[in-house]
């Protein structure tokens, strides 16, 4: 491997673990993270990172990552599906519950791990789709 500095990119982002919000640079090559550098101009961390933020990034490229949608088949097993099929199944299931049990029968759980844009979408999905406030995030447990 004759890597040159031009193959290497850095991307400024925020650590994905605790709520301190340390700034860091993701060092990448060939679409893989090869290192994490603490950001000395990060307002929350001023160059510091903990053992998780500095080193625990392998999971991003772990073979266990879900790479395709899954749907449960007639025998109760999860099988690979296309986005078309999985999204149709997801939507149809909620429409069925809505029709059968009413709009207070569907609940949304948003994540404290995802970006705010995902959280905003989750609450909008519940409020626009069902006209309820049946939405929460994972802060209570």
């Amino acid at each position: 491997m004759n890597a040159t500095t031009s193959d290497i990119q850095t991307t400024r982002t925020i650590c994905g673990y605790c709520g301190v919000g340390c700034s860091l640079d993701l060092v990448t090559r060939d679409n893989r993270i090869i290192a994490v550098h603490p950001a000395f101009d990060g307002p929350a961390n001023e160059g510091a990172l903990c053992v998780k933020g500095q080193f625990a990034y392998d999971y991003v490229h772990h073979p266990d990552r879900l790479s395709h949608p899954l749907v449960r088949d007639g025998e109760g097993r999860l099988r690979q599906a296309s986005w078309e099929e999985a999204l149709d199944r997801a939507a149809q299931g909620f429409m069925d519950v809505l029709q059968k049990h009413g709009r207070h029968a569907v609940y949304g759980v948003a994540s404290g791990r995802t970006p705010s844009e995902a959280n905003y979408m989750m609450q909008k999905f519940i409020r626009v789709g069902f006209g309820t406030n049946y939405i929460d995030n994972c802060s209570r447990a």
Partner: protein
Amino acid sequence: MSNPLADMEKPDVIFCIGTNMTEAHPVAATRLKKALARGAKMIVADPRRIRLAEMADLYLPIRVGSDTALLLGMAHVIVREGLADLEFIATRTEGYDELVDHLQEKTPEWAASITGVPAAQIEEAAILYGSSDRAAIYYTLGITEHICGVENVQSLCNLALLTGNFGREGTGVNPMRGQNNIQGAGDSGALPNNYAGFQPVDDAANQAKFEKAYGRRVDLEKGITKVTALEQCGDRIFGMLIDGENTVVSDPDQEHCIHALKSLEHLVVIDIFLTETAELADVVLPAASWAETDGHFVNTERRIQRVRKAVDSPGEARPDWWIIGQIARRMGMSGFDYDSPVPIFNELCALSPIYNGIDWELAESGQYQWPIPYRGHPGTPRLHEGAFINGRGKFSFTDYRDPAETIDEDYPLWLTTGRRLESYHTRTQTGRSEGINDLLPEETLEVHPGDAARYGLREGGWARMSSRRGAVDVRVETTRRSPQGTVFASFSFADVPINVLTGSGYDPITHTAELKVCPVHVEPIAEKAQLAAD
């Protein structure tokens, strides 16, 4: 946090309670270490002799679940010793006279009888906190994960209000948020009682505002919490969409939780791994991970910071916002035609008074801490300067009550749960990161040597730990970090599912589970058994 992280280097006196900061928020703890090096004094109240306790000038080893008693005792001493800031009280608070009456009986001797901390140490802590010019309180889930979590927080606010420790550098009441964007989740309206920007849903003006924005009238009634929703699964709740939460391992009373999710007619889980929760779903949708997505995280000091995509997702994994939007569109909902996260964030900003002053472009700098009420506003690193948002600071007349379950002959030990430095939550990520997994490959139960002798446990041997809800097998680590009568384990390891045991009670207002207190029984066993999870 009421105050910015930078303020952690500024107090004269630091009071940490229910926070294992060196393990759960290590980088924030480095700021406290700087304050200590500068000469600040530190009081630490925690059932366990954690690293922070070792660094403290005064360590208060309180019995689990007795925080309110300690804080009332301290407030009593502050008033008795004439340490109350009467000018601050007169100009910025209400209810002081009633509080003085309320505190009459809450003597340090009374607090000592509940907390197990000698009255003299409670007095010393109160005098240290009450006499300094700049005193700051830091707390984490050791305060909130109790049936009295709200009273605990209110009791902390009483201390800061009594001594005028709000709205100035190096002061405040500062919760350390546990997850990278748990603050942003609340800010964005993923709550049953608030729209985005903490606008209450039961206010008709807010209902009208969002009806106009969303083209759909939303209930004026608050929704139910996740805790209640899980209780109603199969009864009133039949469909659930869960994004990025391993509910089965993180939530209390695991058997109840699995049963609840299995009784749904339709469960859709969005995640990056096939978690224990995703395994129960009818549809599993693969999400982009943290390094593969653009958006924002909001940190514990209310700082809105940009997250940037650095690598492509594996296979067909897609960003959460795209996935949710696609489901909405297939259900015929309008207002979900986003082609990037940019208009989503801008919509959130436009609808949230605390974000009104920024948009995607302005947030790039990462300099803004909310509230940012209008364009050109610099943001608000420090809350409550000069005035409280809602008028005067109200004293709360809190009282001590026992945890939901207390120790008895059958369950004679207190179990308290928490985090460890090397693991994050249910280890879906850190368990798949090689180096870090080597540092902490398995869960252990912290047991005081005295308890180990009493219950026949040995270092490195196996114990079966049971509560009123279930049992787990766990390897024993004898240590004086946990006091006699109290054992500790984290909930991180799915093969030692500590949350099979927990779930004795919930705070009646917030529905936060009492994960910090669970009476248990321990006995030695020859080797770990394979306990069925369902």
